[in-house]
Each structure stands twice: as structure tokens, then as C-alpha cells.
């Protein structure tokens, strides 16, 4: 998905894990995903560089769909679909 498409997504849940270090954002995502229904979209905000690669890998293993990442100033918005 393009940055514009990602930004236009209807997000069902936002997890703000900025300020936490690895594995904080990944664990925050894991905690929050239980609240989503299949097909719903979650956005994870992280200022931890490693999360950009951890979340896509985690999605593949857990059967979620990684949609893409948008770089903001000092943090990332990572999108995935349950």
C-alpha cells in the first residue's frame, strides 16, 4: 500500500507505544490485538527502530496481514489487519 493509502485507512485501534524500548511495542501490539475482530485494522505507533521489522515478521507468523509503515518525524506508524 502507498503512504497515502495507509494514511487513508480506517483504523479500528491505535496502540501508542512511543517511548518504550524493544520489546515494548511488540508486546503492546500483542496485548491489543486480542481486542480486535478479524478484518479490523490496528495502527502501532513506535519510536523504536527495531519494531519496523519485528511487526511484519510477527504478522507473518501469527497470520495477520501487515499493511505497511509510514515514517513520521521521530516515530513510525505501522499498520496491520487481523
Amino acid at each position: 500500500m502507498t503512504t497515502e493509502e495507509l494514511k487513508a485507512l480506517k483504523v479500528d485501534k491505535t496502540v501508542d507505544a512511543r517511548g518504550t524500548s524493544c520489546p515494548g511495542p511488540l508486546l503492546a501490539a500483542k496485548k491489543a490485538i486480542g481486542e480486535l475482530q478479524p478484518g479490523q485494522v490496528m495502527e502501532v505507533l513506535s519510536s523504536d527502530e527495531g519494531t519496523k521489522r519485528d511487526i511484519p515478521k510477527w504478522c507473518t507468523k501469527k497470520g495477520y496481514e501487515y499493511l505497511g509503515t509510514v515514517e513520521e518525524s521521530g516515530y513510525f506508524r505501522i499498520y496491520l489487519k487481523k
Partner: protein
Amino acid sequence: MAKKMTIALFSGSVDKLTAAGVILGGAAAEDMEVDIFVLLQAAFAFKKENALTNDRVAELTDKKEDFLASLKRLEAPHWTEAFKTAKEMTTVRIHICGFAGKVWGGEKLDDFIDLADDIVGIGEYIDAAEKADINLFI
């Protein structure tokens, strides 16, 4: 079926215990099943009176103050908190080695922090390691 990991946790130093906590977090994110065997020096760190006050580091000892200050600045959870979070999110069993416990004057489960599940012999470790997908020594 959940992947299995064992950690032979020998170190009683906060740097290595913190690293173990980070790895546990990764294992928890993937719903792995983890068995931790608390050996020798780690049993010291798991004793109730030591868990929060012990601030020894195993490596780069001349940088200890910088390291501890960085953990604070980064708001990294104390290793006991990281272990607790992992236990809440996936199956993590923490076994105290009976011999290690005795080395540090811990005979009963109650001598150790609540994270500990039981006191076992080394046979349990070998058994779990044989069945695990990943075996770590920290």
C-alpha cells in the same frame, strides 16, 4: 503447536537478566512455551531479599553506572517486571535448581520471588531441553 524454548539462566547480573527479559518478551509475542532453569548465580538474584537491590553487572563493569542510568532513561522495565509481563502473556515456567537454591541459603520456594514456580533437579532441565526447539544459556 507452540514452539518451545528453554533458558538455562546462570547469570545473577542485571545486564544479562535484562537481556533474558528482552528475549522472553520476544518469545511471549509469539506465544512460545518457555521453561527457565535458574542455576547457580541466578538463584542469588531470584532470592526475595536480592531481586530488587542486586545491581551487579557481568560485563563492561567499568560502565555500570552509565548502563544503569541508560536503563532508567529508556524506561526499560526492571528484569523482574519483564519476566512478569512475559508470564502474563504466554506460558513461562520458572524452575529454581535445588542445588543453586541451597548455595544461596534458599531451601523453600517461599525464599524466592513469586515468579518462581517450583524447585527442581537438573533432570527436569535435560528433559525439557531435549523436547525444546530453542535452548539458550544465559
